[in-house]
């Protein structure tokens, strides 16, 4: 990974340097994608919004005063884009999980899991997705969500039990 600082890359990106911004994309794409998946609850939408966030941030990057804050800034942009998307869908009464459809026994288990993740409340889904996709560390999730470790642990515990309930109700657990 290139060792240029975020500040340096942001300053260059402000002048339209796409190569510099590409390095920021490489550095932060995963973080952005995880946030998107945690909010919207399905991979396809998460990919679309993560791309939109990264491209939007490039056009708006000159508004960022402290280059070192690029990580939290881009995450916040992604999160807000996701929340707007979810709300627009709710307004249209097309709740996000209905798009995925309720799985049955013939549906691949991976799809069932995605469906169940999508059904979790946001306050459980985001920590759960971050935990599994970002190194399975409660401390890391707590820092990124600005929560206490015990708070994250409680959310994760509840999320696991809720996920079990959803999958069991649809006959998708092999326990």
């Amino acid at each position: 990974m290139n060792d240029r600082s975020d500040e340096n890359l942001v300053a260059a990106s402000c002048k339209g340097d796409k190569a510099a911004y590409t390095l920021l994309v490489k550095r932060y794409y995963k973080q952005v994608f995880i946030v998107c998946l945690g909010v919207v609850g399905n991979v396809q939408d998460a990919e679309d919004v993560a791309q939109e966030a990264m491209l939007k941030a490039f056009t708006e990057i000159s508004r960022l005063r402290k280059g070192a804050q690029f990580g939290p800034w881009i995450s916040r942009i992604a999160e807000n884009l996701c929340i707007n998307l979810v709300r627009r869908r709710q307004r249209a009464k097309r709740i996000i999980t209905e798009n995925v459809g309720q799985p049955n026994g013939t549906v691949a288990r991976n799809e069932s899991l995605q469906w169940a993740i999508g059904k979790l409340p946001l306050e459980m889904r985001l920590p759960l997705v971050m935990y599994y996709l970002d190194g399975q560390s409660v401390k890391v999730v707590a820092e990124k969500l600005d929560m206490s470790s015990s708070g994250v642990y409680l959310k994760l515990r509840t999320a696991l039990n809720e996920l079990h309930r959803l999958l069991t109700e649809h006959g998708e657990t092999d326990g």
Partner: protein
Amino acid sequence: MDDPCRQMQDLLAGRILGLLNEEQASVLNDHLSRCLKCRKYLQSLESENRLLVRFSENIETTMTVRRDRVIQALNRAGPTTRTEALPMWRTIMKSKITKLAVAAVVILIAIFSIILLDRSTTPAWAIEDAVEALDRIDAIYLSGTVPKLVPPEGPEVILEDEKISFEIWVKANKERTKSGNARFKLDNGKLIGVIYDMTTYSYDASAKTVLIETGQKLTIDPWISRELARQNRDFQVMYGKDPATGRHHALVTFVNSAQSTSFCVEYDVETKLPIRAKAWPNTRREGVPAMDCQRHVYFEELPDEFFKFEIPEGATVIDKRQD
């Protein structure tokens, strides 16, 4: 599942997460040795944990492909028109009162589209005429909404549906260079206040507390001026009929280059009064408006007594005025 088993669910999930202390682990193991249902529950959780790990691994292996698609899209995009940093929009985050000041500045800028309703005028002439007409204005009342939250570095993506209502009466200072006395009401009266004689009084209704501070915590700077007017460009006017009322109305759109802000102001053609105004924190009228003003009233004179503040009964007063 029996009640004692329900109590074990959290410990079982904790075990999956590897976060049980010795005592909890011992209690759980003791229970598991006696309870078939909980052993099955644990097996299910372990199975789901494996699913989650595999799901994460699948995503991880395709992450680079996804990331590269973004880089390709970035390279396909032409040179971007980057906006300069916007001090005015940045301040919107600081406090509810500054949000209000920003909204008011934006509305003052919006006022300069009024005179364009006369189809024969050109923008340059119209601005001069508007400034002259507005020179008589002593105070303005505005009401509408501003976003509740915006990202810390600016309004790049504003959350929809989270708005704060505002009402403000604001009067020019003696020199007419900026605002002086003001009265405001925010968030359906949760915060009300007055600026009078260079002192700010604000009442937080939920805490029943009045804060008194030296200085104007809400300043609209500049007041109506030619300089402010000349920042507006790219005017377009569309005429039509309001389907609800049948009245002729006009939509005026324009851009304020100094603040990188775009506007859409709707006027009643007959009265020439603005019906509503919206402003976006970009020059393309894209995304969620950062200000939505539903009502403007102009006063040729508003007495200073209107801005005097009375401390509500039972309120705690925190006086932070400097001696």
